[in-house]
């Protein structure tokens, strides 16, 4: 019976393989060792976001009068000379002061008048978002070309035009996170959860 042991060996081998396959399906290694360490320089080159607490804001500053000049040169062609909107959306519109541009109080305030647009003044909850967005995406044809001072200035102009800061207020990494936006009051987390009720 010379075939016996060989058969047993191959069955045993098969069992070992099967066990190995099961083990592999059950767990992955803690790490694969894929990728290379991201250096601080590599991260800094990409890390342009600005957070509500001001993290990410660069050195520099600006005021509304300086921003008026930057806005006229770089923004007005699309957003209108006064930020009233054009081929791009309106940016300036403090009305309805202290109210959301929607909801029951707004409907009472509006009466029979036409709707006001959604703007920085009534629908942007964080001032830091202005710096973040303008720096990363504006103007669309040449994003990233505004200097830090130009960006602070145009943010100052937009906030002043919307009646949120004074013309003379200096906007910088210290002051911008402290600007309280009117729209901050109306944002709430998603309360939908499926089930019978449409929300």
């Amino acid at each position: 019976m010379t075939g016996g042991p060989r058969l047993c060996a191959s069955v045993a081998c098969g069992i070992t393989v099967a066990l190995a396959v099961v083990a592999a399906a059950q767990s992955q290694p803690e790490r694969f060792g894929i990728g290379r360490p991201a250096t601080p320089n590599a991260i800094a080159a990409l890390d342009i976001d600005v957070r509500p607490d001001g993290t990410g804001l660069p050195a520099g500053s600006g005021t509304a009068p300086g921003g008026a000049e930057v806005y006229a040169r770089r923004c007005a062609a699309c957003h209108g000379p006064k930020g009233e909107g054009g081929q791009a959306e309106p940016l300036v519109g403090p009305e309805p002061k202290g109210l959301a541009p929607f909801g029951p109080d707004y409907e009472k305030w509006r009466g029979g008048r036409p709707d006001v647009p959604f703007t920085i003044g009534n629908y942007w909850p964080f001032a830091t978002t202005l710096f973040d967005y303008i720096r990363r995406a504006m103007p669309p044809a040449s994003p990233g070309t505004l200097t830090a001072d130009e960006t602070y200035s145009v943010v100052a102009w937009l906030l002043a035009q919307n009646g949120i800061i004074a013309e003379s207020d200096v906007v910088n990494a210290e002051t911008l996170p402290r600007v309280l936006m009117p729209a901050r009051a109306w944002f709430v987390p998603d309360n939908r959860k499926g089930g019978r009720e449409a929300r």
Partner: protein
Amino acid sequence: MPNKRDTADGLTRRALLTGTLGAAVTLGATGAPAQERADAASGPGRPPNELGTRAAAERPKRLPSAISSRTPLQDLHGTITPADLHFERHHSGVPVIDPQRYELVVHGMVDRPTTFTLDDLKRFPAASRICFLECSGNFGRQSGERTTAQELCGLTSQSEWTGVRLATLFREVGARPQAGWCLAEGRDAAVMTRSIPVKEAIDEAMIAYAQNGEALRPEQGYPARLLLPGWEGNASVKWLRRLELADRPFMTREETSKYTDPLADGTARQFSFVIDARSVITAPSYPHTVQQGWIEIRGIAWSGRGRIQRVEVSTDGGRSWARAELQAPVLPKAHTAFRHLWRWDGRPSEILSRAIDDTGYVQPEWPVLQAVRGRRTRYHLNPVTGWKIGADGRVLFGVERVSA
């Protein structure tokens, strides 16, 4: 033995068998020589080649605007969208990215900030997932009665996506437990960003590098994108260049002044990621014309919360509803095809569909949706819609049903 089917039109089995009928038709119809066969190619066709193309007569097209292009839902028969017909929505055009130079940086609240190349991403264990992707602004009705299914909701498409699970990547970099949020950033000209809640996303999220078996299309985020099944498309950031983990959201423009939902009660809903259940009849739809008799009403239904449990169809403007047949497999967070046979008697009718998902959510009628959302909401609109069929068989969009 004569076969009943062969003689049903008064033709004899012999005529069919000997081919005399076919020959007579050929000559009668065209007068062409016998070798010009009407019923088969008259000579060898095109030899094998490298890339296939659609049949010349088939010309499905996306419907582009300045900021998006829509899938021709009415031209499709299945639930997988051909990649070149997948809808597009981007904030500053489609970037051109060299896959050899592509890198994804993962940093922030992690033990090991890491840079991954495209090859790195492909070395990790892969996962595939069939799911829909829908823009939360997918509700177009500017053309009134002449709105097509494509205009109405062509900002939804479905693919089989393949990539590496986000959980695998997060384990690799040592994501810290307090990292509840992750900023996803694209490398398009808008460098578009969204904050993603890790706990809610981690089970199903992936970094996808393939779509329907091949590399992503440029419009879909080539060479790699975030994919969040069931969530509004904007959150599945394309051309992904950076993930930054943090303990709170970043409050980017796309999750504050955009992609939020002003409601009837004066609050605005933020981080409203999940797509609620919806359905649409794709046939018949404008600009089809139908004939009296049997019509198979066809469409798709989907829910970002799970599986479609059932779809109901009404052929009497919503007075009564019948359960439509669902085409298996019914996958979670996936377009599900439905069909309903209807015998149209030629009288003016309105056909509607509504989806019910496995949470029990019922696709709402427009007045119900308006009551909770108010007048000024623009995203996540999923009302029951339908098509009006005139006595002449012409099909028009039932625009009155979704008017304020």
